[in-house]
């Protein structure tokens, strides 16, 4: 079967055939290769490829992506079936809005801007505290603050939208 992988290196297709533990696969336009893959523990894959051993661990993220960890190296990926419609694809598109999301769970210490403010790239927007560390969230580009959805003192979850810049 054929799947599309979206990761740091962009979009890439992969074709896989075979049955456990032997799989043949082809990455993009590369020649076909064969790997021996066993699953010694849940979400842990032991891979033998061209005589080399790899221990790959898989984590599923809250956003539906996958993180593959091999010998300490992290690969974050989304897997998409090209024959399937994905809402994410439809949602992806330049609407000109920039959302500022909490990078981690924490508490809003200070809100430095209000809707209607013009901000410059790099200007501080909010101060978030987690684990006793205060971090200033800065505007990634210049624009106008369209909304601020939190108040000082609020507890926020990772990924929660705090403000939008138009």
């Amino acid at each position, binding site marked *: 079967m054929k799947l599309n992988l979206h990761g740091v290196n962009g979009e890439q297709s992969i074709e896989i055939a075979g049955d456990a533990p032997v799989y043949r696969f082809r990455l993009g336009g590369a020649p076909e290769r064969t790997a021996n893959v066993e699953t010694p523990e849940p979400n842990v894959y032991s891979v033998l490829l061209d005589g080399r051993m790899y221990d790959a*661990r898989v984590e599923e993220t809250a956003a539906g992506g996958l993180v593959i960890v091999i010998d300490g190296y992290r*690969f974050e990926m989304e897997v998409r079936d090209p024959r399937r419609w994905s809402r994410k694809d439809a949602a992806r598109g330049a609407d000109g809005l920039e959302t500022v999301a909490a990078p981690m769970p924490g508490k809003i210490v200070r809100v430095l801007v209000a809707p209607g403010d013009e901000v410059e790239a790099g200007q501080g927007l909010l101060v978030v505290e987690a684990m006793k*560390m205060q971090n200033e969230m800065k505007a990634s580009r210049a624009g106008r603050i369209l909304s601020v959805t939190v108040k000082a003192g609020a507890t926020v979850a990772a990924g929660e939208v705090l403000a939008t810049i138009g």
Partner: protein
Amino acid sequence: MFRKVLIANRGEIAVRIIRTLREMGIASVAVYSDADRLSRHVRMADEAEHIGPSPSAESYLVIEKVVEAARKHGADAIHPGYGFLSENAEFAAACEDAGLVFIGPSAESIRRMGSKTAARQTAIAAGAPVVPGTSHGVDLEEARSFGAENGYPILLKAVAGGGGKGMRRVDREADLASSLRDAASEAARAFRNPDIYVERLIENGRHIEIQVLGDRHGNMVYLGERECSLQRRHQKVMEECPSPLIARHPEMRQAMGEAAMRAARAAGYYNAGTVEFLVDRDRRFYFLEMNTRLQVEHPITELATGLDLVRLQVEIADGAHLPFTQEQIALRGWAMECRIYAEDPYNHFLPYPGRLTRLTRPLGPGVRIDGCVYEGWVVPMEYDPLLAKLAVWAENRENATARMIRALREYDVGGIHTNIGFFRQILEDEEFRRGNLHTGFIDQFLERSDAPRAPGDFPAVAALIAALHTMRHNGNGAAKSAPAASAWKETGRNEMLR
């Protein structure tokens, strides 16, 4: 000897102390906040007492609650660990008033050394060199005039500080107001004291500290040094004993050791303490502060000296004499420590709380872990994100470095981001290998290097596993076009794919 000791702390240091108490045949009492009922230190202790809500200001920092817990459990003594109330003179006094032995220095010594500004005065009186700075907390005007007189960059530091909290580097006057405000607010939260003082910043200095240990009968020794120059956000992340600099210039050890003891003696110090120095490029050293408690990085001194500092602390608190003289102390081999944090080193070291889905710890020769985590545990967002301290010992620095890399390769923590991979990158770095360390090392390292690039076939294997995992966990192929048995399942599957 004490029969029961309460640990007024949490996390890895509480676990560390319980271990020694257990070896000494002393019962342990843990305290915990709402967030910590399932933390390792609580599960491991012989007895435990709930002391309030998750914010430390309502639990671990409340003197009355901790003392009351000790009384209720019939403890003879209290070990404060590091952080929280460990450098709070009122707490030490409250313990003594309640008939509990405080395992640390006297309240009076803490008063003289606990606040950074008071410590500077004590050090100056004892003849130890200090970095130019203000002798007290300042307001914006005073900070401004200090900057104008001494020039930028300057360093804002919390009077009650420690662990880099409430510390800010200021490069120009325009940033002073906002930095001072942020530092004061952080200091107020961490230490309940917003006072900030100012020092001249010594660029690219080395942070080297001396471990001292004194008994209640006037005897004192220094147990070598620790190099703590590798820092991020002004907080140490990696330490070595001995210091690569002092290994090249061994005469510095005695000079710094004696200066440290002079400062400690001036404060009437006993029990374990650490005197921190900044060393400039001409190898001149300046007194920075004294930590009147056990240090986070104490394991490397233990590995290089073969001593158990917690045991010595307990024995000294019980009235014992120091069991050795200065001449009997020798550093052997090389010890190194990495502080494993739940954070993302490639995203400004932002903390990364969450659930640990997997945990495999390194084992084998020369490896020590002081940790508090286990598989399934949720790293709370209320406290410092230190998961564990990984320490190694080997015959020399080169072998210790190789051993640390080996141990880090075995360390697997799933579900959250950690700085494990980042340490491996640093340990491979040529400048690190040459021992050219300074407090700006990590910032410069990040500037001159990229996030680690995976070697050879790693990306191909990752792609194969991502695809295979998706096939196996989405009804053996997301491509299957048979109608879904249930709309709920279909929706769930779509959610998974998003």
